């Protein structure tokens, strides 16, 4: 999601402000920018691993705190502080595995908790100076850092033992949380050594080395998730579960169309609802505050608000699509230009063209947006499933009139996010801060979005229109590829614009298309960025949610036009991309590609890289007599470098496939005169258990640096299924969701 963001920072000179957009970024987002500057210097001035060695000390319970990521308790627990949000992707387990591996801890002694918001200590090194989770970058940016953190802590514990036992440290071994010296017969647990290690000078850090990967005992094994038990007995704590003394609950009435504002409020009936304590106007609407959720919701129903629609977006999906189609007729701003496409198309033996339509999509995490905010004399405290901690910290500070370091964020686990909580303007956090400002100092307020608020509240995966044209030579080989994309920019008007938009092209709109791996000599990818008053955001796998679909369906069309097998056709164009090729071959082999299937069944394939992870999927479908499609089975091959936890990787592929499949088959948010037509799961349909295919995951053995798995399972499933439907029926599904074109 954000790898271009980090690249942008590296490529930009912060000392020179040339573009107005950048100036707006630095001034308008002053709080954010302050964090950025600190983080930027950290990043530029120190090697990554230096962070891990900084901050040796002791905690209030007498435990050992070797660095910002680890606490060794005198009770023999090892607590790993996660700078990343656990939202289901298994990151608490993955990060803790890396630490435990280098520490030689026993898995049973490992605990994980969310780190406080701190751009200096807990920044995502892939983002630069921001603490945040996204772009499937958590493991990738933490791997070296946490290996070093674990190895450093281990070295300090060994030193403490050597001093205590008066033995040479070379004779000391560590295994499963026990430090031993064979010659003297002495041994101690980490807990026994914690206080002694805390008292040691941090002098060993420079001599620390990480393990040779051949010695790994935890990395590469499927240790159970650290949150597995709490998520089967109801004890896992989400923001919705936070209860504080004197806490009130708020819901907000927001305008019925995007860009609407409050004209007038009559709150008499709302205030008469038992339990309602206050009605507060906030920038996004009118908040009803009550002693409990139900009273707040009833109060909102009783509220009479007159809305000013004069600046609102009033176009509907049909009008937007007509505008997008008209734009698609004209050249856009180039995102990639190889050779001469026009000339190659003119000389081609055969040309193929196709258009694709993609709707707005809501994230709809199971836990709707919610947080708890308390403002008191000293500052602001927030409890949330927070995905962009230091951005939320900056935005909350600005809303509260505080400095960022006066905002303390307790990051809890999130009940899903899929990008919704990675929110540049921190919409729900800022709303809660505004409500808290209107309450007595020290009164905590829990803001809850209802499902209707969530589905109708915007920040969707943008609507897009794609047109692809390709030329084949007489042998069926593609010689020209032109791909035009029309849609909104996710970062338009945000502080991210300055670093993520290059030459007018938002990298997140074209990712997956501008880096198409296929070996085609003449290629043009261009973009029209539209201005629409519907707020948009990254949705699990971001640009690849639409680019993988259009490119992989279109490649399939070309294979068909060339009279070639879809797997063979791709192979011939991937000779310079061995990791794409390897997952394609693995998935095809394991799926029995080419072997005959029963009547009414067919296979389809897709391969796509996102966030530096390579995934190929073969979908096997059955066409039912009524013309509907059932996805029976998906064979998935993934190359994510070193596999930290194979079972978590499998789970993410399974989940990504289900999430992506529901999106392409059923997902759409449509607008009529600017108003969202869906409101809850009865009309914003998502995948249910009977629609989930069997999934078989194969992980490529690799020693490459580990990359993420939260998002990359999503992009290939749509095109793989669409290609299977074509193989079965001869019908191409180019307009999503599938429900527009067929019975499902």
């Amino acid at each position, binding site marked *: 999601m954000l790898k271009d963001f980090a690249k942008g920072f590296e490529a930009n000179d912060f000392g020179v402000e040339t573009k107005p957009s950048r100036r707006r970024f630095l001034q308008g987002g002053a709080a954010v920018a302050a964090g950025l500057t600190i983080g930027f210097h950290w990043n530029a001035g120190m090697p990554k691993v230096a962070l891990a060695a900084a901050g040796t000390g002791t905690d209030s319970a007498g435990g050992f705190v070797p660095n910002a990521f680890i606490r060794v308790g005198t009770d023999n627990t090892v607590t790993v502080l996660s700078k990343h949000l656990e939202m289901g992707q298994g990151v608490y387990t993955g990060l803790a595995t890396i630490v435990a591996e280098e520490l030689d801890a026993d898995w049973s002694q490992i605990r994980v908790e969310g780190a406080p918001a701190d751009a200096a200590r807990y920044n995502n090194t892939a983002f630069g100076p921001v603490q945040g989770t996204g772009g499937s970058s958590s493991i990738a940016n933490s791997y070296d850092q946490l290996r070093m953190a674990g190895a450093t802590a281990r070295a300090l514990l060994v030193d403490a033992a050597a001093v205590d036992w008066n033995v040479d440290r070379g004779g000391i071994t560590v295994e499963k949380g026990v430090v031993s010296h064979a010659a003297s017969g002495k041994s101690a647990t980490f807990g026994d050594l914690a206080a002694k290690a805390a008292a040691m000078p941090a002098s060993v850090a420079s001599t620390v080395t990480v393990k040779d990967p051949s010695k790994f005992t935890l990395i590469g094994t499927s240790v159970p998730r650290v949150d597995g038990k709490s998520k089967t007995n109801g004890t896992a704590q989400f923001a919705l579960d936070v209860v504080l003394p004197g806490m009130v609950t708020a819901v907000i009435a927001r305008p019925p169309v995007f860009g609407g504002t409050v004209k007038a409020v009559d709150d008499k009936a709302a205030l008469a609802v038992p339990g309602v304590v206050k009605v507060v106007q906030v920038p996004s609407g009118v908040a009803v505050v009550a002693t409990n959720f*139900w009273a707040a919701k009833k109060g909102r129903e009783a509220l009479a608000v007159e809305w000013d629609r004069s600046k609102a977006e009033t176009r509907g999906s049909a009008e937007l699509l007509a505008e997008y189609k008209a734009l698609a007729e004209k050249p856009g701003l180039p995102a990639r230009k190889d050779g001469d496409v026009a000339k190659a198309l003119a000389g081609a033996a055969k040309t193929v063209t196709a258009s694709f339509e993609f709707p707005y999509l809501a994230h709809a*995490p*199971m836990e709707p947006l919610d947080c708890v905010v308390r403002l008191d004399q000293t500052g602001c405290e927030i409890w949330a499933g927070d995905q962009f901690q230091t951005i939320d910290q900056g935005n909350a500070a600005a809303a509260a009139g505080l400095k960022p370091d006066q905002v303390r964020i307790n990051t809890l686990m999130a009940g899903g996010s899929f990008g919704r909580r990675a929110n540049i303007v921190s919409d729900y956090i800022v709303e809660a801060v505004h409500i808290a400002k209107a309450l007595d100092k020290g009164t905590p307020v829990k803001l809850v979005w209802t499902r209707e608020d969530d589905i109708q509240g915007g920040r969707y995966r943008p609507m897009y229109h794609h047109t692809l044209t390709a030329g084949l030579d007489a042998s069926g080989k593609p010689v020209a590829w032109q791909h035009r994309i029309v849609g909104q920019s996710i970062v338009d008007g945000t502080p991210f614009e300055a670093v993520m938009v290059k030459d007018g092209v938002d990298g997140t709109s074209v990712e997956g298309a501008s880096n198409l791996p296929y070996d085609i000599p003449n290629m043009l990818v261009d973009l029209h960025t539209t201005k629409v008053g519907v707020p948009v955001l990254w949705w699990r796998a971001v640009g690849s949610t639409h680019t993988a679909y259009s490119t992989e369906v279109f490649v399939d069309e070309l294979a068909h036009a060339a009279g070639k097998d879809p797997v063979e056709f791709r192979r011939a164009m991937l000779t310079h991309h061995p990791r794409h090729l390897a997952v394609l071959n693995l998935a095809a082999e394991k799926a029995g590609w080419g072997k005959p299937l029963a009547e009414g069944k067919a296979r389809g394939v897709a391969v796509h890289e996102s966030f530096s992870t390579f995934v190929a999927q073969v979908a096997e479908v059955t066409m039912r007599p009524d013309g509907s499609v059932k996805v029976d089975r998906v064979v998935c091959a993934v190359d994510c470098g070193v596999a930290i936890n194979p079972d978590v990787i499998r789970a993410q592929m399974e989940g990504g496939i289900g999430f992506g499949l529901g999106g392409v088959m059923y997902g759409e948010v449509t607008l009529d005169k600017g108003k969202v037509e869906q409101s809850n799961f009865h009309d914003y349909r998502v995948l249910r258990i009977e629609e989930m295919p069997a999934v078989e995951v194969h992980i490529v053995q690799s020693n490459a640096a580990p990359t993420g798995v939260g998002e990359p399972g999503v992009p290939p499933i749509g095109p793989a299924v669409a290609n299977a439907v074509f193989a079965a029926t001869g019908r191409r599904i180019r307009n999503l969701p599938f429900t527009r074109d067929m019975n499902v």
Partner: protein
Amino acid sequence: MAVSFKLNGKPVTLEVDPEMPLLWAVREFAGLTGTKFGCGMAQCGACTMHVEGQPTRSCSMAVGDVEGQSVTTIEGLSGKAATAVQAAWENIQVPQCGYCQSGQIMSAVALLEQTPKPNDEDINAAMSGNICRCATYVRIRAAIHSASDMMEG
């Protein structure tokens, strides 16, 4: 107004509006937060509790309607099916974000209490009302079969 019922085996009396959904009464007035809010209209199953042993969407049932009845939440689960389901959920590592899992487990336990050897169609019928946006469905299915085997063994 007061509503009295049995919650996880113990009698409770809650001073609430009887029209308040059972979900919010239990979460905010009885202090049991293991049951989650997902949709508020019986579409997602995150709020599933057992009322008189039957899986029930507590977001859409007024607390006044359970007067005198027996309500079980994830915190009060017990018995052979519950033990097997929770063990299978952990063994098979079902949860991802975990938010829907209390509801999933409540539905699965009710299924196995009534149908100890469910086939895939039985599982579809019993679990279709429980949405998981992380799409842990493959493992939910496997865990129900596994729990069923455990109950037999």
